């Protein structure tokens, strides 16, 4: 049954300290809402529960993209349209720029935020694989101060994360040290626009003289949350990029992946496609000559 808007208290304090005070005064009572592309869908379907909502839309401290020589920082309320429009992301973090184009449609990208994508914690989240292989850090804030954790440790279970009830996701920090890495990201969905991923795979690898010296592989929809594929990385680290690396890498990924059958796909299909995507990346590593 459709949700009744009159049942929800909602306020828009308009600044970050006021939001944090509210979260601290009654932990768990207020649900932050940014662009609403997730919570308003739940509301329409009558799945939103009795929460009070505190709006993060239009809070300037949360909507920014800043870069220094070594880091690019994205405020939690930056939209995917903001990401697509940012020249530094396009050139220095191309996988993230590509993922931003996958978020729903233009109308969704105008409203959907990076922080919302991560806090919602869908196993299929579009921005997550890219953020994982770029070794992102998450900054959380509360009235107690701020702390940083690796994004790879943010998700702790299906739709569960490392935040406490009084914390808010403040920013995502990305180290700008992947320019020399070979980079890969591909999503397989029902169609190009408006489709939730059946599976997506991202990778960054540093290849020196034909040997994989550093590698990160991450996937959407292969686990209860977007996750690094550490065993697959181990199977590839230090190996030559020749054809002999493909089978052991596929086997490692198939052993590690824990996809499920659901409305969008089957576990079997997801595994096969994920292994094929990994193979595609490894073939690219072999055939493409790295630019000097």
């Amino acid at each position, binding site marked *: 049954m459709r949700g009744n*808007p009159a049942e929800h208290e909602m306020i*828009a304090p308009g600044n970050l300290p006021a939001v944090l005070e509210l979260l601290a005064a009654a932990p768990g009572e207020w649900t932050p809402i940014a*662009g*609403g592309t997730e919570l*308003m*869908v739940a509301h329409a379907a009558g799945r939103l529960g009795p929460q009070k909502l505190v709006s993060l839309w*239009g809070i300037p401290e949360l909507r920014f993209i800043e870069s220094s020589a070594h880091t690019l920082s994205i405020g939690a309320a930056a939209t995917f349209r903001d990401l697509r429009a940012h020249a530094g992301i396009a050139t220095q973090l191309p996988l993230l720029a590509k993922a931003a184009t996958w978020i729903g449609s233009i*109308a969704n990208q105008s409203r959907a935020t990076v922080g919302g994508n991560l806090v919602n914690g869908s196993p299929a989240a579009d921005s997550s694989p890219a953020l994982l292989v770029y070794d992102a850090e998450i900054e959380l804030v509360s009235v107690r101060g701020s702390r940083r954790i690796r994004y790879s440790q943010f998700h702790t279970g299906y739709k569960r994360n490392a935040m406490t009830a009084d914390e808010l996701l403040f920013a995502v920090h990305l180290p700008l040290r992947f320019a020399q890495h070979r980079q890969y990201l591909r999503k397989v969905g029902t169609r190009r626009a*408006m489709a939730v991923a059946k599976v997506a795979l991202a990778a960054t690898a540093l290849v020196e003289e034909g040997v994989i010296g550093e590698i990160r592989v991450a996937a959407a929809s292969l686990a209860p949350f977007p996750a690094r594929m550490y065993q697959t990385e181990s199977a590839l680290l230090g190996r030559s990029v020749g054809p002999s690396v493909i089978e052991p890498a596929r086997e490692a990924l198939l052993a590690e992946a824990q996809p499920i059958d659901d409305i969008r796909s089957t576990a079997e299909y997801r595994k096969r496609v994920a292994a094929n995507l990994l193979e595609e990346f490894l073939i690219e590593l072999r055939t493409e000559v790295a630019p000097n």
Partner: protein
Amino acid sequence: MNDCCSTIQFTVNGEKCTVQTPPMKRLLDVLREDLHLTGAKEGCGEGECGSCSVRMNGELVNSCLVPVLQAEGATIQTVEGLALDGNLNPLQQAFLNCGGAQCGICTPGMLMAAAQLLSINPHPTIGEIREGLAGNLCRCTGFMRIFESVLAAATESHAASTEQVADAR
């Protein structure tokens, strides 16, 4: 909790509006029920179909996913605001000329998505039109006539602006 109403002010199609409404009411419902602007349609109610598309502060949004509190102070354009002084917008005329509208449910959203696209990219390629309208579903036309309408409107406005330049000379 019917007493949890907020007073919200915003500008719709150039006119200042004030509504008393629950803050979580969807912008779509405020437009249709409170302001009687029934151009924006509800299709899916979950941001998938685009039939409720409006422009808010220069960006395309699904009005079914905007709690009206977040529209406070915003400048909103709906399909009712496209025509100027009783003259159809070139996009509307192109949809008429090219058969871009059939049953009409998707049309207001298609027009707003197309208006948004042309506002930032006045001469889009067919690929850019496909992307700009990818969040708007049509179950009549098979989309080709809609894409052709947008292309025609872009060409038309290009021809018109070229004429204006020629006239000015």
